[in-house]
């Protein structure tokens, strides 16, 4: 950046050229002694060109050429963007390989980007620039702003029928949630809720395990709190960990949104696509005060980052751990750890759990009917391989897999499959959804509440003032 900016300055060339003149003299003086720098550089440049040219003739070369010269990829190659790293990334690659096995070696070009805001920025810019992928992954809550921006194509019943799918093949909750303006904006792959991890050994010592070796059902606030007290006695420290520092804003939000929605008086946090703050302040205070009371009693940590919060449960320093089910991969990789996963207990009036879904979207672009069919075939192929995906903890949205015996025997994944029906998604807003500006702002304040540095009232004030910019700005979508 800086270099380019400087080269616009004509003064620079004056001094640089002077230096250059001297160098010419130096070079000529030295040329008799051996290889001159210029010759060396020329040789290096030449050497660098060879593999580039060679690359153009090979299979990946067509991709390189498409990037450099804008030539078209073979039309049969489907371009697919996703945001999966870690265990999810590995499983997604296995599923991509499954698609390639069926449709040929060059049938797919899959690209993985860093998740969160940067990913959705890329999808948006590529679509606005008329170079979007054929199929992209999006969180359900982020697909809505994309749809509002006119960046997605609706998926019609004919599209679904062309690859043998229909609405009844999907979990009710995500399917109904994605319906927007009477259209299908995406095809859900899974539901990924907040869940409760527990350490077998700690919970057994605390007398919380039933005869079958799973955590006893904790049906209300009193039972839950006495369980926390019992675990705390065993660990001589926190009973339950919730990550809330070092930039971790998503987890405090997920936990808050779960307990908040278990209240029968819960109202949406945001309404009218993010232009009104409609949070029920009494419920907000009740939930956050309760959390603070747990921290004050030493049952819940006051400040732990994501990895440390998790390691507390892994190492028995805590009995319970609240996080998304995707941490199952990390938990399974810990040697000698006996753990289980259950839905977050219902402490208030009704069952509710914060969740989102990974979905497939079709970005707006010119497609032939064949290309459209191919994109749908790809989605179908991914859905068919949902069992591979489910191993990473996500609850399959595709019912033929979710109801299969193979999934039901998948433990502990199937222990919390029921959560999908009580999933609560983030409120639609142009600045909302998973990993969004909204989650960052609200989650940061909730993290401070847990650290006891802010009272619930102060946090709410801070949230109101920081959100006011977005509440008062007309949606750019």
């Amino acid at each position, binding site marked *: 950046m800086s270099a380019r900016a400087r080269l616009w300055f004509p003064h620079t060339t004056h001094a640089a050229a002077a*230096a250059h003149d001297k160098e010419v003299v130096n070079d000529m003086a030295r040329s008799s002694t051996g290889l001159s720098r210029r010759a060396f550089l020329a040789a290096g440049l030449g050497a660098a060109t060879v593999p580039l040219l060679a690359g153009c003739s090979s299979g990946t070369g067509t991709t390189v050429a498409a990037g450099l010269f804008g030539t078209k990829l073979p039309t049969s190659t489907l371009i697919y963007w996703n945001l999966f790293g870690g265990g999810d990334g590995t499983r997604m690659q296995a599923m991509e390989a499954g698609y390639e096995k069926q449709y040929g070696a060059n049938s797919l070009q899959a690209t993985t980007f860093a998740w969160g805001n940067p990913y959705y920025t890329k999808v948006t810019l590529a679509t606005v620039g008329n170079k979007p992928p054929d199929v992209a992954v999006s969180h359900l809550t982020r697909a809505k702003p994309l749809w509002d921006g006119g960046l997605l194509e609706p998926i019609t019943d004919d599209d679904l029928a062309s690859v043998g799918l229909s609405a009844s093949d999907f979990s009710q909750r995500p399917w109904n949630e994605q319906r927007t303006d009477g259209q299908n904006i995406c095809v859900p792959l899974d539901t990924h809720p907040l869940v409760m991890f527990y350490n077998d050994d700690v919970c057994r010592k605390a007398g919380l395990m039933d005869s079958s070796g799973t955590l006893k059902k904790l049906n209300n606030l009193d039972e839950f709190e006495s369980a926390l007290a019992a675990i705390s006695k065993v660990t001589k420290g926190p009973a339950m960990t919730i990550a809330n520092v070092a930039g971790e804003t998503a987890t405090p939000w997920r936990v808050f949104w779960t307990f908040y929605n278990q209240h029968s008086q819960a109202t949406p946090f945001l309404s009218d696509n993010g232009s009104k703050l409609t949070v029920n302040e009494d419920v907000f205070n009740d939930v956050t005060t309760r959390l603070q009371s747990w921290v004050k009693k030493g049952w819940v940590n006051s400040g732990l980052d994501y990895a440390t919060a998790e390691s507390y449960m892994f190492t028995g320093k805590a009995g319970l751990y609240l996080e998304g089910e995707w941490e199952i991969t990390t938990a399974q990789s810990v040697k000698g750890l006996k753990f289980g996963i259950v839905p977050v207990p219902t402490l208030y009036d009704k069952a509710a759990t914060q969740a989102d879904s990974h979905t497939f979207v079709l970005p707006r672009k010119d497609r032939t009917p064949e290309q459209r069919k191919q994109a749908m075939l790809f989605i179908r192929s991914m859905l068919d391989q949902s069992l591979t995906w489910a191993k990473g903890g996500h609850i399959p949205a595709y019912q033929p897999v979710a109801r299969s015996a193979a999934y039901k025997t998948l433990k502990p994944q199937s222990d919390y499959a029921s959560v999908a029906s009580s999933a609560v998604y983030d409120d639609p807003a142009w600045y909302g959804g998973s990993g969004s500006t909204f989650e960052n702002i609200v989650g940061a304040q909730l993290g401070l509440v847990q650290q006891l540095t802010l009272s619930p009232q102060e946090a709410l004030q801070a949230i109101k003032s920081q959100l006011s910019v977005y509440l008062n700005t007309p949606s*750019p979508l």
Partner: protein
Amino acid sequence: MTTATAARPRPRAVRNSGLTYRSPLQRKDGRSAWLFLAPFGVFYLAFLLGPTIYMLVMSFFNTSMVRTGLGSFAGFANYAEMLTRPDFWSSLLHTLQFTLYTTPPLVILAFVFAVLTNRFNRGQWFFRLAFFLPFILPSATISLIWVFVFTPSTGLWAMVETWFGITPGSGVLSSPNTAMIGVAIATVWWTLGFNFVLYIAGLQEIPRELYEAAAVDGASAWSQIRFITIPMLARTTTLVVLLQIIASLKIFDQVYLMTGGGPGISTQVSLQLITGTAFTDNRLGAASAASVLLFIVIIVIAIIRQLTDRSAAKKEA
């Protein structure tokens, strides 16, 4: 180039002396000059002037990233929003903080290294190459290198800390107090070479006779630097400082790649806020307003620097 000597006339002095300078160019040469300028002029218009004017216009509208056209008229709402946003001010402060951290070392170190290198008669090319080499690397590469160096507890930085008996903490880039320093160190290492080359070029234009005369008069090496090198390089220093301040105010790559603006928003700089507003929030109008404000800040700083420089030059004269 060859006529550039120690007694470089100041342009202002020429104007004041009343000398008239007759150009050897004829009037008809003008037309072909325009022709030669045209290719660059077109680019300049299409990619610099055009977008700048468009930005100014957009800053008064609720322009969206995903909609065509300017959108509804916003008046000064975008400016009012930016000026009342705490994160706009904090990002501006971080930009100034980065400029303060990087400009002095980049000017002073470049000067010191250039003077030292210039003392070598043989093998000077090696030092010139060594100091300039990092500059040709892309920002992504240097960011990777330095993130690697700053890796908590196992990185090179932590290793050096343990040699001195310091227990490595959570890493330079993980603490809000030190993250910007980490980025500044990486930047100094990266861009030192450019200022270094300017100084080397300046040094080689200082006539040897001056040093010889000074040596004959018994001036020490330090006196020679103090009374010959530094004054003779004054114009180079002026240029280097100006370019450096402007480049530092436009910081984006390293911060984006090394800390992503974190921890929290403790290293978020203005350009990052602007890209975030424009391409993540899809609000081109608001982002344009922020750009215009940053543009004004840079111009003001450049003017202040120019004025102080001018008054210093007057004092000298």
